[in-house]
């Protein structure tokens, strides 16, 4: 390949959004996943506005209504729960809390963990020694105890569950960020930036962070799933979110006693968790490619071929 012939034809300049869209269309799995997630997020935003009342309305005499029965209205399409409330409506309404808990704790953990990791990775002083120890302590601190402490001293609100889950996830981001920074800070382009006189903060935010961000985002999408399951386990142990708040995890946990005679109570919210997790995994694979200029062509080319 000679110097003067560019390896590929020039790419038409597209807006970032449009190019992302075409890359998304190139990956059918990721597209499906994205559509599903958009539906979930839309449910989280507008669902409670329209369905909050229906979702909370009990009907003790019509409990555990079986699914796929359209007579009682579309909201009962997935059946009714142990208090006769429509499952479909409840799943839609619960999307908000579920997403808030998962997104909130993952975002908080990522921001705090990555910040500490950046400090630990870039500092050569005492912080580099102390911060990893903090991670160790958090790692060994039993999350159940943390949950009970918060539950007892505060109250089991969505916000506090976010605190509990966020704290337990901080070490992952802290350790990953630190390890990546230790590697990235030796890279040639960081040196190049230094030679140009770039400030430390510019090097960190403009050069290091974009390089480690895909890794962090990949972990975050996987963590998102993990947090949903952890929240569900806390509910199972009785130290998670409490009714009348609802989350998918709580619904699975509450439906558990009925597994043998009304499977749909825990099945549908469980399916919602599985599908969301799966979608996030697929999307994270896609995102890893899309965010990497060196890999992006796979999707760009694919998009043209398919489009």
């Amino acid at each position, binding site marked *: 390949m000679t110097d003067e012939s560019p390896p590929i034809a020039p790419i038409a300049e597209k807006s970032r959004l449009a190019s992302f869209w075409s890359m998304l269309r190139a990956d059918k799995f990721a597209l499906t996943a994205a559509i599903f997630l958009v539906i979930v997020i839309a449910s989280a935003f507008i669902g409670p506005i329209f369905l909050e009342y229906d979702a909370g309305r009990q009907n003790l005499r019509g409990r555990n209504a079986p699914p796929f029965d359209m007579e009682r209205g579309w909201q009962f399409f997935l059946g009714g729960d142990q208090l006769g409330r429509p499952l479909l409506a409840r799943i839609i309404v619960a999307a908000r809390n579920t997403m808030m808990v998962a997104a909130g704790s993952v975002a908080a953990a990522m921001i705090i963990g990555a910040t500490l990791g950046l400090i630990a990775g870039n500092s050569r002083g005492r912080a580099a020694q102390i911060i990893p120890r903090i991670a160790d302590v958090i*790692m060994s601190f*039993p999350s*159940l105890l943390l949950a009970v*402490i918060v539950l007892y001293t505060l109250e089991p609100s969505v916000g506090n569950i976010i605190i509990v889950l966020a704290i337990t996830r901080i070490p992952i981001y802290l350790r990953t960020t630190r390890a990546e920074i230790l590697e990235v800070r030796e890279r040639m382009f960081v040196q190049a930036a230094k030679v140009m006189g770039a400030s430390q903060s510019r090097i960190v935010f403009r050069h290091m962070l974009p390089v480690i961000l895909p890794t962090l985002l990949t972990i975050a999408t996987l963590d998102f*799933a993990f947090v949903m*399951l952890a929240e569900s386990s806390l509910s199972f142990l009785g130290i998670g979110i409490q009714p009348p708040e609802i989350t998918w995890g709580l619904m699975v946990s509450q439906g558990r006693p009925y597994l*043998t005679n009304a499977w749909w109570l825990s099945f549908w919210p*469980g399916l919602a*968790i*599985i599908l969301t997790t799966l979608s996030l995994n697929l999307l994270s694979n896609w995102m890893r490619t899309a965010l990497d200029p060196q890999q992006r062509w796979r999707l760009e080319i694919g998009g043209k071929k398919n489009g």
Partner: protein
Amino acid sequence: MRSFLTKRAYASLISLLFLIVAVFFLSRLTGDPTNLYLPVDASLDSRERFRALHGLDDPLILQFGRYLADLAVLDFGDSIRRSQPALDVVLEAFKWTLALAAITMTIVTITAIVIGSLAAFRVGGLFDRTATFFSLIGASAPDFWIAIVAIVLFSVNLGWLPTSGTGTVWHWIMPIGVLFIRPFGLILQVVRGAMITALGSAYVKTARAKGVASRPIIFVHALRNAMLPVITVIGDQAAAILNGAVVVETIFGFPGVGKLMIDSILQRDFAVVLATIMVTAFAIFVMNLLIDLAYAVLDPRIRY
């Protein structure tokens, strides 16, 4: 090696001390064990006597000092609930958790490595896609849900396996099976990724040029190189089980530290909580040492 060990032990000890302080004081925020231990209609007088008996009426800092002094002579205090030395209670439970963790992680490691390596050998093939898909699905389902469904299916409906308990090998199958799923999915992905890298590396090309057959290339040349990131994840997952597989232990009536931990937290049996944390922290410390040792064994470039 010795200085490495000392340094590690020192760092762990400091972390552990922080942890003890944090757990000791934070756990006291969760209320007085007296109210939980005595019946709701016990008189205020008997409550006072109970507090005095267990030293709960002393200032917190005094209680902590006493605890540390006892700890210095390896006395972990007594369980209020069980009126036994806390360490005995914890070690008894830990035995079970250790067995569970060891067996589960051994099976997970072997299967994940074999399946992950084969998936990496034909990336994008049918085997690869199937393995990835099912490992993802399995890892996405709440574990208590899987556990109950498994009991209903395998014990009640099919009658193949006992529901719970620890009596025979058959009793271990379902708890291990449920615990297996999540680390398996994760480690499978890591093995697959690391093996794809390793199989694409230059030394594999050399091996092929030497005339080495496919199987030794995968399992001798590539695998040992791919193991480093895998071992890290194995360690993390094993630590998670050692810290207590609460849900699985609760459902299958498995007397491990996870169940002990949640019980003693809910019952405010602080000595047991602290002893549990210390025992598991020690176990994880030892395990991390073993992992570092494994690094050094697997990769001659690593020396401590």
